[in-house]
């Protein structure tokens, strides 16, 4: 069993910096978990605490039901793939991949070498086979006798994957492994990793700052900020029912549009969109809305833009248009607010000209307003 349990895990550095604050999470055996968040949010630290590369200041980490706080990394049955590959530069690919296995064998050491026992030979042969098989799976058989410096970035990452695979661990850990690759390669490797997950059925914990990567890879994702877990759920949950403004703004591209407003009976008064703007809320969507300030969140794909006035649309000015080939992102000034709309190609929209923006509130979200904007929770609606 390779489930992982984190119970109020914290990391405080000497000097008082708290990198992770009381994270409590449970990962099931075989899940693909992605830890995602901006730089410095503590995701890497959390991963390294699972690996044993970082000491645990508080709480417990359990792997397979066993508390591993005091276990050194090599005893935790985990393998890690690093951002910078961390291949041993002075060893061939074959050696890089077999290194961990060689260190763990039962018939190692000078005594066995002298004795040249049969068991030792068999063990070595087994290791060789494992390496070759794994290399074949990753398509790097031709590279086995090369040194890392003779490989491209993508090849190196494959070798790094191979090194982890060969160990057949209970848990795979990935620390932003694709950040150093170009876009196309990244997408290709993503698919490989998913394939890897399918084949091995192992628990995988993956760290990235790229929310798109998280969305495509994760069974469940854990969004973190400033050392605190913001939300842990499936990509759909994080996207469709973000726990707070931060998660809402972090997951999904382009970023959700946020509008300051005041909730009143049946409607939202949003002066920033234009004096006197009142938006009618879909009936029944929010059973109870406390009156008062709230923030409206609307995804760009729910904002329509037309060059001609449309019923219920707000006056806007087109600030910029980013053409993406099959669609466009249009940056608008609506009143004093700035909004982004993702629409189909429309040649009639031109930068600097007037336009009309229609906001579809069907899938909109409301957030509490208050001090720390990002922490404002989403106001529960009838879908919860």
């Amino acid at each position: 069993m390779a489930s992982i349990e984190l119970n109020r895990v914290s990391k405080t550095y000497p000097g008082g910096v708290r990198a992770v604050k009381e994270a409590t999470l449970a990962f099931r055996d075989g899940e693909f978990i992605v830890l995602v968040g901006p730089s410095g949010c503590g995701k890497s630290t959390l991963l390294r605490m699972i690996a044993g590369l970082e000491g645990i200041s508080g709480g417990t980490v359990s792997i397979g039901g066993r508390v591993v706080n005091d276990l050194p990394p090599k005893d935790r049955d985990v393998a890690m793939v690093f951002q910078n590959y961390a291949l041993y530069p002075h060893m061939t690919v074959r050696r890089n991949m077999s290194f961990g296995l060689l260190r763990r064998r039962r018939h190692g050491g000078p005594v066995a070498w002298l004795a040249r026992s049969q068991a030792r030979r068999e063990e070595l042969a087994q290791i060789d086979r494992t390496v070759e098989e794994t290399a074949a799976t990753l398509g790097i058989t031709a590279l086995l006798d090369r040194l890392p410096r003779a490989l491209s970035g993508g090849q190196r990452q494959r070798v790094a994957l191979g090194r982890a695979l060969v160990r057949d661990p209970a848990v795979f850990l990935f620390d932003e492994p694709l950040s150093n690759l170009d876009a196309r390669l990244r997408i290709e490797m993503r698919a490989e990793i998913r394939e890897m997950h399918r084949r091995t059925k192992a628990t995988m914990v993956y760290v990235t700052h790229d929310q798109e990567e998280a969305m495509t890879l994760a069974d469940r994702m854990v969004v973190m900020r400033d050392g605190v877990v913001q939300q842990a759920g499936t990509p759909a949950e994080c996207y469709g029912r973000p726990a707070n403004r931060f998660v809402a703004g972090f997951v999904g591209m382009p970023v959700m549009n946020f509008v300051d407003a005041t909730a009143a009976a049946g409607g939202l008064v949003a002066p920033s969109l234009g004096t006197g703007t009142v938006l009618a809320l879909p009936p029944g969507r929010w059973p109870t809305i406390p009156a008062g300030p709230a923030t409206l969140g609307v995804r760009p794909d729910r904002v329509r833009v037309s060059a001609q006035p449309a019923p219920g649309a707000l006056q806007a000015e087109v600030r910029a248009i980013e053409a993406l080939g099959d669609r466009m992102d249009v940056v608008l000034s609506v009143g004093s607010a700035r909004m982004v709309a993702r629409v189909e190609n429309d040649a009639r929209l031109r930068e600097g000209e007037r336009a009309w923006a229609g906001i579809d509130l069907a899938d909109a979200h409301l957030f509490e307003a208050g001090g720390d904007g990002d922490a404002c929770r989403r106001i529960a609606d009838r879908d919860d």
Partner: protein
Amino acid sequence: MVAAAVLVCWAFARVGLRELGRLRAADGRTTLTVLHWSGEGGPEEDEIVERSLRDFEAANPGLRVKRINPGDAGSFYTKLQTMMAAGEPPDVFYVGNERIPSFASLGLLEPLDRFVAADAASGEPGALRLEELYPQVVDAFRYDGSNAGQGTLWGIPKDFTIVGFYYNKDIFRQAGVPFPAADWTWDDFVAAARAIHKAKGPDGAPYIGAEFVTWPAMVRAYLFTEGCDAVGASWDELRLSDARSLAALDRLRAWRHDEEGTLTSGRSKIATGSAVFATGKVGMAGPFGRWVVPEYRRIKDFDWDFAPLPRGSERANIILTVSWSISAQSVHKEDAWKLVRWLTNEEGQQAQARLGLAIPSNRRAAESDAFIDAARPANDRGYLDAVAVARVIDWPANPKFEQLLGSNLDEGLKTGTKPVAEAAGDFERLWKAELASPLGRGGFPPVPWGAITAGIAVLLAIGAAWMVRARRGTALALQDAREERAGYLFASPWIVGFAVFMAFPVVLSLILSFSGWRGLSPLGEARWVGWGNYAQLLGEDARFWTSVRVTLYYVLVAVPLGQGLALAAAVLMNQKVFGIPFFRAAWYLPSVLAGVGVAVLWRWVFDSDAGLMNQLLGPVLAPFGLEPPHWFGKDAGIWGVPAFAIMNAWFVGGSMMIYLAGLQGIPDELNEAAQVDGIGRVRRFASITLPMLGPVILFNVLMAVIGSFQVFTQAFVMTGGEPGDSTRFYVLYLFNQGFEFYEMGYASAMAWLLLLAVLAVTAVILRSSARHIYYEALRK
């Protein structure tokens, strides 16, 4: 590579087997240790001693002899001193007669009178018969506590020599000068020299009249012939400035400096006076003893002979001799005595005599045909006749006398930097200061070792307690605690090493600097002098300040020169030109070399007449009417130190490599951006390259400064600090004090002053650099 591996295995095997052999051979026999040198006698003398000892072992089955020969006399005395300090002195060893007073005063030697008396009474076959030896020579080893020549007998002379001049018969004939008579005078001498200079050699250049070395012993011999001396009846009665002495010295100086070609003028050290004679370009050479004979016997080009010292107002000569002595701490004195008389018996003496190296102290051997032989010199009798008028040249127990005399005489006679009257006056002044110095007085309390140890223990305990307290508090996570333990474990070799090999010696050295301790005696006899050493150094010791001046002069010349050259070389090496690796290796090669050979090499380079430097500079300077300097001759005061600096530049390869590495570490983009901006080369170098090199320059300069404070080996081998004190670097002077005068406390004080100076300079350099250097953080 394979060859290297084979060599290493062979070496270990050889050493291993040898050591095992040594352990096994440690049998029950008594072992006597014999220490001697073989300098001029070379391997032949070595062989003679070895054979003699083996015969001794054969004749005395219960005894074994272990022989140690460190090479030359200088190394011999260093080795002797360390063996004494180690508490394991050799049983039997050479002592030059000049050292008898100081050794005897230190209680290092065993008085031999009782052995001689026992032998005389017993009359057994191997017994020593003192009357068989030349009495004057034996008396050279008597010392009564204040004067040599009388009192207790401290050694049995193995051989001796008197001094005189060797002359080139062919040149004499050519110049029409009659050969020296038995009682020739100084007037005869100088007339011959002048006449010789008028004759020309086969290459058309005129001969030089004579080589006249000005070693203290020889100068005193010269004074003896004029009825004067440096001292009077006792050591505080100085007579060097008497009218007669000054007249004689001045006459010598005039011959040397005022007359062209009469005497050679202060040759380089590489070719001692004796070698000059062998070239066949001088008419006479001396005053030398018999020791040059083996070398001169190899001369094939001309015929030569020997004439004892010329007469002045009286006939005089000196006896230089070496004895076999027994250590006072020997535990086998009776057996050692057996060895001593074996080594000085007639057969041994005859064997030595055949070498030609010295006059046997045994009269019968001297009169035999082992000495009076057909080999050159023809005038063997001349040596023996001179013995009658020869006296032992004695020195006080304080070895500084000879050093001071030597260095001041050099300045008057050799380099000519001072008039003789002034040089003599300086010597007298310094010697009187030495006698009167507070340290010279004595009567100090012993060092309170017990109290000191207790005090240190208390300090350590307090330190430990404080550290324990500071650590309680921050508990560490297990991982971090493990890492910490590993950290201490892995760093422990250095920590332990530091404590044992650095902290402890430094502390001990500090304590020693407050004590007066003659290194030859046990540590327990060290005396506490408080600030005495420092006071003496800073207040009274003029030579200390000279050494400081010499060293600072060197630092100011060598560091800019060396570092500038290294940087320029690195810039040159950074060019992408074909063949750079070859040049790089060639320029770096000198810095992997060292040793006596290299030192001799550079001594030649700076030779005043024949050296490479002056051979190159001569033609360059001649059009301006200038002469290249006599680096280690008369211009040593100004040019001696720069010579060392120039030599140091030869070893610049190491610094060059580091600068090269630094240059290659500068990102090309910086220079490229500047190029695009149109900034010229020189400006680019000054504004980009130099600042980026900042940390590297700092590191190099710092290391260079620290290193130049510690110049020692080159000076030791090349000039020994001479002429005078013009190249007496600080550490060389420290070494003199510690290992030649055995003043360990004084030397420790000097070492501590050096340490403080280095720290101060380092602090100044680092502080002033902090403003100018662009640094990246040292560690995360």
